[in-house]
């Protein structure tokens, strides 16, 4: 079912209410959800669904996924955590994954941005150039 324009507008307003200093506030999110469920405004089901989607995208902006061909040793992973947090703030959550198809190197995804330093990507870039 397509979300109505009105529901999307409301969900965007709810997201704005859930932020403190531009960061997602868990307490405020709970308050927002509770008040929507008690007041039940028009299309509240759609509003909550779209609000959930916006929350997911907002959380993804502060969640980094680090992929490597083999598991990283603790030294390297700690270094990565320190460097990423220094650049993107302390509220950044980091998840480590292994993906053998990368062949080697690292691939870091943060929100919609990807830094792909994997061997697979480098080979593909070379292939495109040749």
């Amino acid at each position: 079912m397509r979300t109505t324009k009105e529901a999307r507008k409301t969900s965007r307003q709810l997201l704005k209410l859930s932020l403190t200093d531009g960061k997602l506030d868990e307490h405020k999110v709970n308050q927002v959800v509770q008040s929507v469920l008690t007041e039940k405004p028009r299309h509240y089901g759609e509003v909550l669904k779209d609000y959930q989607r916006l929350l997911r995208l907002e959380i993804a902006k502060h969640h980094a996924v680090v992929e490597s061909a083999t598991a990283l040793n603790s030294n390297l992973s700690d270094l990565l955590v320190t460097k990423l947090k220094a650049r993107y703030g302390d509220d950044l959550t980091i998840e480590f994954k292994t993906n053998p198809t990368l062949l080697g190197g690292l691939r870091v995804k943060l929100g919609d941005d990807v830094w792909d330093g994997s061997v697979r990507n480098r080979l593909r870039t070379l292939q495109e150039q040749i």
Partner: protein
Amino acid sequence: MSTILEELETTIAGLKADTARSNVGTVREVGDGVAKLEGLSDAMLNEMLEFPGGLYGLALNLEEGEVGAILLGDYKEIKEGSEVRTTGRLLSVPVGKGLLGRVVNALGQPIDGKGPIKSDVSYPTEKIAPGIVKRRSVSVPVQTGILAIDAMIPIGRGQRELIIGDRATGKTTVAVDTIISQAKLNRAAEEGKIKHHTPLYCIYVAIGQKNMSVARTIDILEKAGAMPYTIVVSAPAAESATNQYIAPYAGAAIGEWFMDNGMDALIVYDDLTKHAAAYRQVSLVLKRPSGREAYPGDVFYLHSRLLERAARLSEKAGGGSLTALPIVETQAGDVSAYIPTNVISITDGQIYLETDLFYQGVRPAISVGISVSRVGSAAQIKAVKQVAGSTKLDLAQFRDLQAFAQFGSDVDPGTRKKLDRGQRVVELFKQIQSNPFLVEMEVVLLFAMQKGYFDDVPVDKVKDCQEKMADYFRTRKEDVLKAVLEKRAIDKDLDQQLQAAIKDFKSFYKPN
């Protein structure tokens, strides 16, 4: 051997495989050649997006948290959740002389089985049209080789002339004949037979047509020897609506290369009604708000931005030109429908083809009354201006009087003379397919008509007389034809030569 090694070394040195930031998103839904994508916060309008499996898409709708993209190819492998990344590039097609004689699809890939295209330059399909500073007025004619058009509705290089009419009235034929005429002139110029002729390269864009029709057109062009100067961009009805939507822009990009490099090109969009329908389909699937006849709000801009790319550039900007001949199909002669009125208002004139005339045997079935070229006689050589000036008036008067003459047989001699002349002009303008006239022959025929040399020929013998007169000039009066071409204007001396030659022909011509 050492040079090969050096070349290899430079190639390897030029290769880069650094870690670069890219913007990604995921497919939320896909279908009907369109994908809805989540993420891609940095995507630009009209940017190419890379899907898994080497498939590309074009970002058309940028919304908060969502991107609507059209897919340029087989999208059956795309699944929900597939990763998509931005490329930072705009959709572009290969351009250059390497495309001449080839048939390509909307992405500029060859579809004629003649191997890869030799081209190292590519142009973006969407480009802003040249501004007013870079342009100059239209003054060089496009010799269509169709007598009625060259005499009454002249087309200039850089002009946009619409060909409009119902189905099966000969719209494509007019366009194809124009292409054939250009090929003949180009070849004659290459062989040194005509001077002061800048070659005019042609691009034929087939949108939403039957494959059979496209194959037939290519066959006609090949048989007439026009393919070496022509590029065919084909997005037939079997292709997706997205490819049909892109095809005219790809064709325009190919034409712009000729224009930017100081050459002249002519582009035929066959036809824009189907292009608008393809765009309507894409827009509806993208869930854009629809307006009149369910077309989206920007359907005018769709065609205006395309046709504005036709231009004649100033000497400073290279002096090239791109002439556009868009084709629009009407339903039951209704020119006031949405797309026809839009395109009429954008173009610099229209050639209106009528079903009634077509079935009366007047072919090309050009309706003189409502066909117009806003560039006018600026796009005619002086000789044609001198002999064709009164023809349109003669024909218009004939059409008026024809209606009156039907009510009574008794008409005064002046009116009778006008009716007789009109009937003969109509006959003279009848022309068989793929048989363009050279400009000097057009001048001779129009001169003979203006001076009344056809007046004593029975109406049903005008065509026969015209053919024999043309033969006579081609075989026995080549010097007069040459003089017309060289002088490009009829002076006293040439007038006498022409009159003497026609009188000589008339002295032995007997209608059989």
